[in-house]
């Protein structure tokens, strides 16, 4: 008697459970990035961006009685290549994710591109390394502007708007720094100029007297610094201590609000380019920036914005198809084009055959400790 009752209840429960799960579409998205290790703060930014989007989507779906739910599975790679690969394989083969966000560092990203290509999992990354999209994978999509793209705009602004002809380049000796520095050099060459000095520094250097002394031997009126944020924040500080009055140019790394915090008054006058600006007078951007700082008590960077958009893009793909699979998401992403882009916080997003996006950059200057837009995209 009791057993019979139990049986009924069980069957009833199973029916309820199966009807619910049949209707529900769960999008599993893996996030690989450094949550510990040297680049932990960047890794957290991209994770938070994705998290915010997932929470918003899940809340909105619940409210509208929708059937799509996003499940984020985060993995730490401590910015160690081996761990990125292991984490990615784990996410793909064990968690059966539909899409992958990451990795954060270019070398780690380069190492997992063959893995996502092998298992045909769409991968969205914030890495800027040029080679990332050159491995013949149909499944890699760069959410960030590639180095040639933003360095060209920066060089153009420095030379044509600010009228600097003598520009030096210094960079962290890693994949990111080297990629940006070389791209900037190429951009200068396109305008018939050559850098007056081009020199690397070792990641984590603390005293830059030597490098600065060499810069002073050149006629440089401006310098492009790229690489690790704590490093060039120190360079700029030490430059001011030496009384060097040189225009500092930077990219998205320098657009990070922490740069102004770390460099203090020495950051004054710095000009940077970024594809995303928190002060841009665009409703979606303001909404995102406010929600982000409410949720995490941090100012959003372009990394957060890019991953926020990536999650919405994946959601859009699934929503339109009414079904979820790796191929549906990859196909949707590939089919975006200039006429039919994805509209997000980063603006209009679409990718070329290699997975490279097109962005136009904000030109921003640090004035009175605040970032002020001095040139709008396309200007």
């Amino acid at each position, binding site marked *: 008697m009791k057993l019979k009752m139990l049986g009924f209840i069980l069957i009833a429960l199973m029916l309820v459970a199966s009807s619910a799960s049949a209707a529900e579409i769960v999008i599993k998205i893996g996030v690989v990035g450094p949550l510990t290790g040297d680049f932990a703060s960047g890794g957290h930014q991209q994770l938070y961006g994705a998290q915010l989007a997932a929470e918003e989507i899940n809340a909105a779906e619940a409210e509208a009685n929708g059937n799509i739910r996003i499940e984020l599975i985060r993995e730490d790679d401590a910015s160690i290549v081996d761990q990125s690969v292991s984490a990615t394989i784990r996410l793909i083969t064990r968690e059966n994710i539909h899409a992958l966000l990451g990795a954060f560092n270019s070398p780690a990203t380069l190492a997992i591109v063959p893995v996502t290509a092998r298992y045909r999992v769409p991968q969205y990354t914030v890495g800027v390394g040029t080679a990332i999209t050159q491995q013949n994978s149909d499944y890699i999509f760069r959410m960030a502007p590639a180095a040639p793209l933003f360095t060209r705009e920066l060089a153009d602004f420095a030379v044509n708007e600010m009228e600097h002809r003598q520009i030096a380049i210094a960079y962290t000796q890693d994949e990111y720094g080297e990629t940006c520095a070389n791209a900037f050099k190429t951009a200068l060459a396109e305008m018939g100029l050559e850098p007056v000095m081009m020199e690397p520094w070792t990641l984590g250097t603390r005293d830059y007297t030597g490098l600065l*002394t060499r810069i002073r031997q050149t006629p440089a009126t401006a310098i492009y610094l790229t690489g690790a944020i704590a490093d060039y924040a120190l360079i700029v500080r030490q430059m001011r201590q030496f009384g060097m009055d040189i225009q500092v140019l930077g990219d998205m790394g320098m657009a990070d609000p922490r740069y102004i915090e770390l460099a203090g008054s020495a950051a004054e006058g710095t000009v940077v380019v970024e594809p995303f600006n928190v002060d841009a007078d665009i409703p979606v951007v303001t909404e995102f920036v406010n929600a982000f700082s409410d949720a995490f008590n941090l100012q959003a960077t372009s990394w957060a914005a890019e991953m926020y958009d990536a999650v919405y893009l994946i959601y859009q793909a699934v929503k339109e198809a009414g079904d979820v699979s790796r191929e549906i998401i990859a196909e949707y992403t590939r089919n975006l084009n200039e006429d039919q882009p994805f509209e997000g916080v980063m603006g209009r997003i679409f990718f070329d055959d290699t997975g490279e996006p097109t962005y136009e950059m904000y030109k921003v200057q640090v004035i009175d400790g605040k970032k002020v837009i001095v040139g709008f995209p396309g200007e």
Partner: protein
Amino acid sequence: MFILLLNSAVKGVILSMEVTIQLLISGLAIGTVYSLIALGFSMMIRSVNLINFAQGDLAMIGGFLGFTFYGIIGLPFFISFLLAIVLTGGVGLLMERFALRRILRSRSPVINLTIAVLGLAFVFRTGAILIWGADPRAYPSIVGDDPLIFLGARIHPLNLLLMGLGLLAMITLHLFFQKTLTGISWRAGSLNPEVARLMGVSVNRTMVLTFALSGMVGGAAGVLVAALYFAVFNMGLPIAIKAFAAAALGGFGIVGTMLGGLAIGIIETFSVVYINPGYRDAISFGILILLLLLIYKPAVPAGRDIREKLRAVRGSSSYFLSNPNFKKQRIVLLILATIFWFLLPQRTDLYSLHLLNMGLIYSIGALGLQLINGYTGQISLGHAAFFGIGAYTSAILTMNFGFPFLLAILGSIIVAGLVAALLTPILRLSGFFLAMGTLALGQIIYLFMINWVNITRGPYGIYGIPTPEIGPFNFFEFDSYFYLLTVTIIIQLLIFSRLTSFKMGRSLLATRENERAAAACGIDTFKYKAIAFIVGCGSAGLAGAFYAHYQSYISPDSFTVLISINYLIMVVIGGLGSIPGAIIGAYAVVLLPEFLRFIADYRMIVFGGLLVVFMMFLPGGLAQIGREFLRFLERYVVKNKAFKGDRR
């Protein structure tokens, strides 16, 4: 390569007076920091014989404590400085009391202690992220930003203030050692523990004092460096490497170390002006190796202290494995193990299979280090460099020159072995001097990987490395790679078992146990050390080749000093001098961080903590567990078969 260096040197500039002064002040300021941290190293090495890898992390803790008191709570700078010193000293005390004392007492090899300290370093670093966050934190301005003008040079007053504080700390320490009874007895204890004990010096107190003091100097250095630059959780290691070099340069004496730190600071600041900054560290390290080899020739004989208990294993440790009466059981066991191993890929998912493969790749390299470290007792901290040489060689040979896979990996072994052979003069060093020398070599090779762009593509790395093909077989799938690796490691094990037995093996062990006694017995100890080093590094090259073709992407990032440290951890937690131990250790290091994924942010804390616990309770490494198990099996069989053989 050296033409490259020379080319850069031509860029040299002539310095004016003011620039020279500026460079000098900067060099001295960073040098003061190196000196203080180096003092921590020296004290530890002199009294406990320990390379304290956590020294840089103690400085990091000091830097953050200073930031908390000065930047957050708002106490005056000098008070914050003192508080940070005292509290970091306290951290040093806690380290000794709760983790290291047990290992010190158990008289395990010093390298065990080193690994435990490394574990603590992981704990500190991850703990700092949890407490203070992953972002660098800047101290609020202390003395304003207006520079002082001195002979035309602009000098930041902060530089002077911090240099003053650093010198003050060093003078205090010097006076403490010279003038106080506690200080004098510490020196006595570090010079000759036995005699000092007879004179009534408590060895325990010396130990406690050492840890407290090195915590304190670390704390002082941390506040200085963080005030000058930033407090950030990973600031410890780069500074610590230089500081260790400074300590070695100063011969690990108190005054020598102070001067060594200042010297390294000045050398590296000035060298940047003349030499491509990319090679800056190569210059510091190159000079260091030359100095070590040419001037000091420090002669600490290899081999362990007679007071250390014999923990490492000799040959076949278990009766069960060697007694002819157990032949049948052994064969059954071997067949079962083989079947199990070869069926494994069918029973596991891809992720586990991937981890199995990574474990095998690192096992090949770890076996090489086992030969160097476990068998001849030479501590190498440059193993990752040879791993990298192998990886680059094979990648370049297959991609640029169209070598077939087998020839390419052969090339990897040969190139790695040749480089090792060229570097054998470094084996004249021993103990922690050798550790330093190999660390410096590893760093220099790493810098060449980054800077020699024409060959290695620099920091971009090499991508699209093809999967191996041998005749008609392609090893693209994980399971086929697993079999390929298994066959390779079996061949390697056969070669190694030849090398480590018979006359060769006995000579290696004799060299490790007591170099002088071995030499007296007519063993050419240098020859055996060199053979072990070359074969060991060749194995690392082989592992590197397999790594490159497996990951299909390599960059200098995969061959940093952290990987060298990982290799050392593998060998020690696996069990020094144990061939299976190297494999077990490799798997432990590959698998543990993966198994611990479920605890997310606390992962590396637990991993570090486990290293400490292993060293506390398993001084013979994880192989000890296996050994105990075999002994248990042996007893079981003996009991059931009523077998009464002779028990050795």
